[in-house]
């Protein structure tokens, strides 16, 4: 591996600049990382292979969804930008799961894809301390394979830096598959990244190869929507960004619809007749694909008892006719794709504008990372996004902001920022990746979060804005507004607890309307709210002293009161979680000598060397029985240490 000095000795190389932080890749992770570093005052440079595709949405033209919406809100609470840009570019907004309890309410918005890219680009262009550069970074420069000192582009330009965040998405040594046709290309026909992967490998970083895919796009003109189910947006939901919400921003009132259809018997026939031509099943694709976002042929192969699957037809923007077929990703050949699409109701005349394809790419084994997303072996090297084995824009952005913050903290010589599992989906995501690893593209899901009732989209600001402020990404002005919101929540909760109302005809009417019994004596408003089906709004006629409050404040107050009992239990669970999290594992522990551990656990613990028992307990292959053994061992270890010292 080169040092900058070695690199300079080569032909046609030169020093192009010196920066605090270099961010390689300007997708959703790279944009957040670069923005965070620049906002924290560091001289930052952001590289992209193609400026016009910065913050590209190469797959779904949407942001948010179950658990992903929570991530966007958390990124915003920390001071990130995805939510703000998404708010500006939304063309349809919805709150998923609104009937299934506040913990799983998930905001989702359709984006105008090109507008998103342009808006993000322009926003970053105007960010202080940030340089944006179209360049192909081909190698990392280090000192003694241990410390990042710079990066070099395909033109021989050397950029010196103190820390580097690599967010290569699906570009490293990428190959796309369209039936038998294989291209050495990135997504959307963009150039791929060559050389960087080898450079990482040379540093001793363990690499993996995954695959993912994307569906076809058809021209709206050729679609018969009368054969489809229409799905409209909702206009009475909050925007993604808390800052926008506090400033009174609302989601667009004019929205475009999405549509859905079901596959037919013909779809199935076309697929099964052509299965042998799928590079997935003929063994051409080596990379591992995601279980949660399978290609349509995968769905038919794996769920043989299901005769049909649902497909969503979504607009790609306001200034284009392209419609995206969600759930119809495939790597079957071009002419088969046309037959498949035309087997769908309303799409019999469909004109395909872009073909579906599968893509295979190199990534870093996330088990080689610290919770800060820095490499365990190379100082100053951070990675974020799909390069760490995740899938999804929101997962990428979440890692991007954490990697960016920690790269900045490293350069500034400050304490790193780690969000634990009890504080955010961000914590769950990163902890899963770096302690459990993944053998397929990792998709965030709400069920991965143990403390879901706490990790709600509505309270992401309560959980993370203080951290964002302390880090320096939240402005004074925003923080003041946040504090005043907190004060409102606290005061209103207190008021509801202390305000007792006596039984009255009016109260009786309200309660009876939802099948609840009117109490015989006075009852606090808080107690009333805890009853099922009673809402804050419903109680207005009997609550004379209420003052006007923001919708966000009311929602927070109402939810925390209604779920108080459940939240209390979850809080106890969090305390238990912290107990194991606080039990540190000594760095000199010899797992090989603890014979009670099963062999797999011994090997995994020795390789990953978790910092504490909590983290050890989440390593796949380490069972609770192994943890019990570790706990007993630790006790003996603690007892033995001082004794050994005195005896020798």
């Amino acid at each position, binding site marked *: 591996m080169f040092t900058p000095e070695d690199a300079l000795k080569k032909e046609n190389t030169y020093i192009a600049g010196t920066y605090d932080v270099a961010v390689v890749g300007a997708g959703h992770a790279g944009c957040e990382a670069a923005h965070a570093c620049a906002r924290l005052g560091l001289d930052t440079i952001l590289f992209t292979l193609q400026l016009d595709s910065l913050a590209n949405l190469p797959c779904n033209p949407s942001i948010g969804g*179950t*658990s992903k919406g929570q991530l966007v809100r958390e990124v915003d609470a920390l001071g990130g930008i995805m939510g703000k840009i998404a708010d500006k570019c939304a063309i349809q907004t919805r709150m*998923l*799961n609104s009937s*299934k*309890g*506040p*913990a*799983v309410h*998930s905001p989702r918005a359709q984006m105008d894809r090109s507008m998103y890219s342009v808006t993000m680009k322009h926003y970053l262009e105007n960010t202080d301390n940030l340089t944006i550069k179209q360049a192909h970074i081909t190698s990392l420069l280090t000192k003694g394979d241990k410390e990042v000192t710079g990066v070099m582009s395909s033109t021989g330009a050397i950029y010196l830096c103190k820390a580097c965040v690599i967010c290569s998405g699906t570009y490293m040594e990428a190959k796309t598959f369209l039936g038998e046709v294989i291209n050495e290309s990135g997504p959307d026909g963009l150039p791929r990244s060559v050389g960087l992967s080898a450079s990482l490998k040379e540093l001793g970083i363990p690499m993996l190869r995954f695959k993912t895919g994307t569906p076809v796009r058809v021209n709206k003109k050729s679609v018969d929507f009368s054969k489809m189910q229409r799905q409209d947006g909702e206009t009475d939901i909050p925007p993604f960004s808390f800052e926008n919400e506090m400033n009174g921003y609302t989601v667009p009132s004019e929205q475009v619809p999405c549509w*859905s259809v079901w596959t037919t018997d013909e779809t199935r026939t076309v697929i099964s007749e052509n299965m042998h031509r799928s590079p997935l099943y003929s063994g051409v694709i080596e990379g591992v694909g995601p279980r949660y976002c399978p290609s349509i042929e995968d769905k038919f192969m794996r769920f043989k008892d*299901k005769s049909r*699957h*649902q497909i*969503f037809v979504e607009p790609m923007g306001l200034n284009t006719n392209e419609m995206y077929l969600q759930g119809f990703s495939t790597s079957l050949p071009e002419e088969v794709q046309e037959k498949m699409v035309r087997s769908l109701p309303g799409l019999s005349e469909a004109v395909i504008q872009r073909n579906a394809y599968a893509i295979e790419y190199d990534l870093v084994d996330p088990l080689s990372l610290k919770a800060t997303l820095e490499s365990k072996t190379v100082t100053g090297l951070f990675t974020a996004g799909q390069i760490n084995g995740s899938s999804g824009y929101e997962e990428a952005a979440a890692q991007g902001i954490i990697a960016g913050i920690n790269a900045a903290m490293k350069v500034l010589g400050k304490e790193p920022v780690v969000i634990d599992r009890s504080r955010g989906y961000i914590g769950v995501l990163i902890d899963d990746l770096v302690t459990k690893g993944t053998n397929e593209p990792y998709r965030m*899901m*709400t*069920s991965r979060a*143990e403390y*879901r*009732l706490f990790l709600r989209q509505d309270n992401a600001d309560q959980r993370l804005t203080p951290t964002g402020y302390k880090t320096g990404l939240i402005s004074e002005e925003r923080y003041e507004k946040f504090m005043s919101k907190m004060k409102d929540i606290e005061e209103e909760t207190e008021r509801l607890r202390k305000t007792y109302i006596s039984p009255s005809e009016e109260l009786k009417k309200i309660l009876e309307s939802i099948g609840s019994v009117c109490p015989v004596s006075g009852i606090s408003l808080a107690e009333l709210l805890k009853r*099922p*089906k009673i809402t804050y709004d419903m109680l207005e006629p009997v609550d004379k002293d209420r003052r006007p409050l923001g919708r966000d404040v009311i929602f927070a107050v109402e939810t925390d009161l*209604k*779920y108080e*009992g*459940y939240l209390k*239990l*979850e809080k106890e*669970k969090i305390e*238990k979680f912290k*107990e*194991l999290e606080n*039990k540190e594992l000594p760095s000199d522990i010899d797992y090989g000598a*603890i*014979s*009670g*551990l*099963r062999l797999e656990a011994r090997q995994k613990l020795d390789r990953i060397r978790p910092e504490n*028992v909590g983290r050890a*307990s989440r390593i796949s292959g380490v*069972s*609770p*029985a192994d*943890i*019990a*053994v570790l*706990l*007993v*061992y630790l*006790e*003996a270890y603690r*007892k*033995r240490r001082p*004794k*050994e010292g005195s*005896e020798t």
Partner: protein
Amino acid sequence: MPASENRPFCACSTPGGVSGIAVIRMSGKGSFEVAGKVFRILRAAGDVKDISSMEGYTAALARAFDPETGNTVDDCVITVFRAPHSYTGDDMVEISCHGGVAVKQELIRILTENGARAALPGEFTKTAFLNGKLDLTEAEAVMNVIASDSERALRASNTQLGGALKRELNEAEDKLYEALSKIEMMVEFPEHDDTPENTREVLDIITKVRETFISLRDSYKKGKVLSERMKVALCGLPNSGKSSLLNSLTGYDRAIVTEVAGTTRDTLEVEVNVNGIPVTLIDTAGIRETDDRIEAMGVERAREASFESDLVLYLAAPDMPSDEMTGQIRDLIAGGVDKGSMAVVFSKSDLGTNSSSEKIMSECRAMGIESFISVSSVDRIYLEELKNFITDRYENLGGTASSETILINKRHALLIEESVGYLDMGIDAIENDMGLDAASSVLRLALDKTGEITGKSVSSELVDNIFSRFCIGK
């Protein structure tokens, strides 16, 4: 000298006191070396001369002596177990020696002076656990086997040791996971119409698991008796025949009767084995109203004893005032004694029929008492009937628990109880539309609790709690 924890440890594994033979066990690296210093082989298979070269699972006749003085202590049979094929998973030596107290003490002294150390409470089983020989449930069951002193208790422990409890809980856990995954499907893929929207199914599953847990929980009432003995209180007016009944129950059974110091000098507790069930008979002071302060205290304690008992036998003798007796029975019930666990025993039936028995029976029936027995402490047939009555009572403890498995461990019972609480909350959340998120949150808590029994989840206090309760030697 190595750290003391690295030395082999030893303890006597058979009960204290004098017996025919006793077994001393030693476990850990170096056990063979220590034994080699203390024993000289007299005869062994394959003509092996020293302990270190004995194969696993072989025995030798050996003479124990004190290396310091050269004095012989005893002739023993030594069995060698080589790691990992031993109870603890480490090298082990089992020494069968003669069962005199002095022999045992002397052997342990010599072993500890020659490189071994005394075992800590529970250390053999703890080591077995650490070496992956037992899981937590099995380890707990071992402890219960040691502590159990009746055949039935042993059987219940063995069922657990064989993993019956674990199997039953695993099934319940699988069902809860099924309910959870149904919820997650609904929550995770809300845009899809083909996800199951049927919360009814989820509710059905939870309700069924709850029933299983309730019957498991109730089985602890029976299991408690197995591990803690069934308490039977004898009440009645002074001279109603309590003491003689007690004597004939204990005498007839020829059980080893140990007089446990009663909670007060006013109640006498006797441990007795009734048809294989460990029973503590509590002879309460005769209950009667009294002005004497000290006696009043005794009477109060007698009442307390009745309330804590699994079965209260109220003795009615033929020549006693029936109103006073029914009054006392009424007081006991009003004071909290469960009428279902109360029986009226017409004592001294050899002295003739109880003239007021009809009257007492009808009044007691009105109070909800259904059990009446006649006994005579001199007639064995009557006694047999009473003993069968106690056995029946025991069988019915914990209701008609459908589960074969009986919980014998208080920790398990408490965890199941907590689990039931969470399932109730989950059912409540679904029925009242509180949201699937709340339901799934408490379902996970319920699973955490059962997981602490099956070893699927672990808390830091758990491990210590379990092993601190072990007695030495196992």
